[in-house]
């Protein structure tokens, strides 16, 4: 297998691989740096593809199946690219008892996707979070990295439509913005 005995080359010319390499170097290319390295890839490229997992395995001398086992064990790692916009519904206890389940259902129904999926046009990814720690503002969502406090199904859909640039149905009906 090429690249097993010598130092493997990054999967592409992309300069961003230097960031990943720096992470591995800082950890002395030790096998225990696996999670740190995967974090670095995910942070840099948004997700872990097969080539990046192979590169990690070869660089840190970790079995392929172990890399895959670790990458799929932790919910934070994504093996597929995410949509242009990301909607995270917090499913922490406070949010749940204040109706986070309905929020999730609303988005699932509106866009025909389930939590963890991305719309076919790649516009929106819907994710569930265990608890984003904004329990005082329940129910909360995170839209493209910004926490939205005290969300209702109506204003959530409206905001999503703002994000994707589509006019919101509610707006057309003259409903006021939150």
């Amino acid at each position, binding site marked *: *297998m090429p690249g097993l005995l010598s130092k493997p080359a990054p999967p592409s010319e992309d300069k961003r691989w230097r960031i990943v390499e720096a992470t591995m170097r800082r950890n002395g290319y030790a096998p225990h740096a696996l999670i740190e390295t995967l974090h670095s890839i995910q942070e840099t490229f948004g997700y872990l593809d*097969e080539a990046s*997992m*192979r590169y990690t395995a070869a660089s840190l001398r970790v*079995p*392929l*199946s*172990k*890399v*895959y*086992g670790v990458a*799929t*064990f932790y919910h934070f790692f994504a093996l597929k690219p995410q949509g242009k916009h990301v909607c995270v519904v917090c499913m922490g206890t406070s949010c749940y008892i204040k109706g986070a389940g309905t929020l999730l259902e609303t988005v699932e129904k509106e866009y025909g996707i389930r939590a963890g999926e991305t719309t076919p046009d790649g516009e929106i990814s819907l994710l569930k979070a265990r608890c984003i720690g904004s329990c005082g503002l329940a129910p909360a969502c995170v839209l493209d990295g910004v926490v939205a406090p005290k969300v209702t199904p109506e204003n959530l859909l409206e905001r999503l439509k703002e994000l994707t640039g589509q006019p919101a149905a509610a707006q057309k009906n003259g409903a006021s913005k939150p």
Partner: protein
Amino acid sequence: MPDATALYQVVTLVINGVEISARSDQTIMQAAEENEIEIPGLCHLTGLKDIGACRLCVVEVKGAPRLVPSCVTRVAEGMEIFTHSERVVNYRRTILEMLYAERNHVCSVCVSNGHCDLQALALKCGLEYVHLPYMTPRLKIDASHDRFVYDPNRCVLCTRCVRVCDEIEGAHTWDVMGRGIEARVVTDLGQPWGESETCTGCGKCVHVCPTGALFEKGKSVAEMEKRRQFLPYLTVMREVKR
């Protein structure tokens, strides 16, 4: 072979009311076995590292707040152990039921029918029917390898295949992906087994597999007998070399 320089003492303990002696570096399961008390186990296989995962071998130890897995718990002086109390016998049966309910185990059409560790355990533990609801997941069979087949429907996630591949063969082709009820054993990056670049095709995983989840191609119902003599042999030979 016992190592003469090893630091162990002889301890006395009581198993099911019978006083026995054992070496302090032995597990409860080993000590019981030497005294012809059989404690059922599934993830345990002599020659592989124990992980205490299947929980079938749990026993009651007097004074201990919890049940202990006998495959990884060492004996101690004065221990009083009950390997077949009503409570653990019932729990064992439920654990087996959980396995039968978790995947799609249809013994009558299985290559391992009659040669299956899970089936044998069910018989030993008096499991006549499964009172838990069957979960019937839909799982794809992987027949891409030219000599072997992986049928996740019959997998019990004991990880014997993972361990034998890592510890004995040294290839680490198998590992577990996902978690919880979604966990599966996979080869390499989850691609078909036949495309694995690390698999040496040695077949050790097939033969340590307790059920018909891993089997040789061409075997029909009840034809797949597992051969495991190699495992103690390899283990002993490696120890001698060391």
